[in-house]
């Protein structure tokens, strides 16, 4: 297991043992900003050296996949899980979108095994963030004809949320600057990346443990959903990646993205757009089940699927 995961476990253990360990909220915010920018810049630098044509096809496929995933999750939640429209839509929105930190753990996983991947993969993080949220919210609001929708506000909230702005901004900066001009910021944005990720995962462990109560309330269905949905989505993601001719590494990362559930952008957008949904449910599943599952067992599984497809 990659050592970054140990930090997650340390955070988990500390909180469950009721230690007073706490990371300042501002540190968490700062690390988020750093990780998003760093991932973006890294991807952007590489983007320049790739032909635009094939990438455009891949991006379009990813966009489609992002819009389809909540369409799969929603009926599962609504009919198998017996959630109301609001909660089914809210959870579907979380699973339709992506988790940047899961992606970062995936990067670390591949790096440690020397598996090559398309270096512009961060582009897909940015591309996959929004569609799932928007479709999930649409599904959740179908029943809700009473309230006015305020879509312009909502779209801005989603499309200009900090994750997309920092990822796309970083991509653009990396792309415009190119490898030579980016070199002086390498020690900051590249060399520190994995250490910062460790600190971030420590905090994630603390947060997940603090929400253990939600998990208990969430019930058995959500627990299963939190494991089966990423396996299903990961398989879909791997298949899409394979179809659009990503490498094994790239396919693994696209599968990881598909399998991951958002807990930065989605909760904020859903809270405003689907206030009737209980945020505890989405977060219990996304943070409490799927995130730990993905960073421990999920990523190796997606890697195996990717290798299987490419043989």
């Amino acid at each position, binding site marked *: 297991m990659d050592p970054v995961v140990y930090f997650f476990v340390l955070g988990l253990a500390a909180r469950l043992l009721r230690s007073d360990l*706490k990371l300042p*909220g501002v540190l*968490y915010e700062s690390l988020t900003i750093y990780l998003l920018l760093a991932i973006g810049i890294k991807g952007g630098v590489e983007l320049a050296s790739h032909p635009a044509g094939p990438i455009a096809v891949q991006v379009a496929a990813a966009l489609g996949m992002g819009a389809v995933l909540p369409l799969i999750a929603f009926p599962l939640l609504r009919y198998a899980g017996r959630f109301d429209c609001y909660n089914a839509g809210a959870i579907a929105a979380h699973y339709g979108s992506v988790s940047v930190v899961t992606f970062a753990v995936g990067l670390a996983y591949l790096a440690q095994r020397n598996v090559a991947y398309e270096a512009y993969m961060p582009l897909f993080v940015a591309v996959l963030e929004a569609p799932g949220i928007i479709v999930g919210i649409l599904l959740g609001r179908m029943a809700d004809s009473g309230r006015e929708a305020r879509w312009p506000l909502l779209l801005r909230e989603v499309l200009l949320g900090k994750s997309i702005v920092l990822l796309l901004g970083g991509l653009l900066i990396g792309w415009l600057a190119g490898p030579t001009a980016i070199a002086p910021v390498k020690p900051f944005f590249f060399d520190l990346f994995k250490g910062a990720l460790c600190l971030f995962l420590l*905090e994630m462990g*603390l*947060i997940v443990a*603090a929400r253990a*109560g939600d998990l208990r309330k969430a019930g058995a269905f959500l627990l299963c959903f939190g494991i089966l949905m990423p396996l299903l989505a990961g398989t879909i993601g791997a298949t899409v990646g394979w179809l659009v001719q990503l490498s094994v590494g790239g396919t693994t990362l696209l599968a990881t993205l598909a399998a991951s559930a958002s*807990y*930065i952008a989605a*909760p*904020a957008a859903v*809270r*405003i757009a689907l*206030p*009737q949904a209980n*945020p*505890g449910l989405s*977060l219990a599943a996304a943070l409490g089940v799927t995130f730990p599952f993905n960073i421990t067992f999920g990523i190796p599984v997606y890697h195996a699927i990717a290798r299987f497809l490419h043989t």
Partner: protein
Amino acid sequence: MKTHPRKLLVVIAEAALERQLVADVKRLGAQGYTVIDVRGGGARGDRGADWDADRSIQMEVICDDAVAGKIADHIHQSYFEDYAVTVCITEVGVLRPEKF
């Protein structure tokens, strides 16, 4: 020091509502507002401010009775059902009555 009676309306709410609440109170006639980052707990569980979804704010608005009533009613209708929100109102005295 002569003071004039006004209301101090205090709203404790999920941080996600900050933008909307600021727009609401301005629209409903408040001439100013103050916001504080807080943590706490209540009917909707503990909100420890550890990360985004758990952050809360406290908004304070000094205003006259009519505006306080309008804001309280608006919050009642718009947010009480779905959000972690608490409202209370106090009598205060201010020095510059025209300001509030």
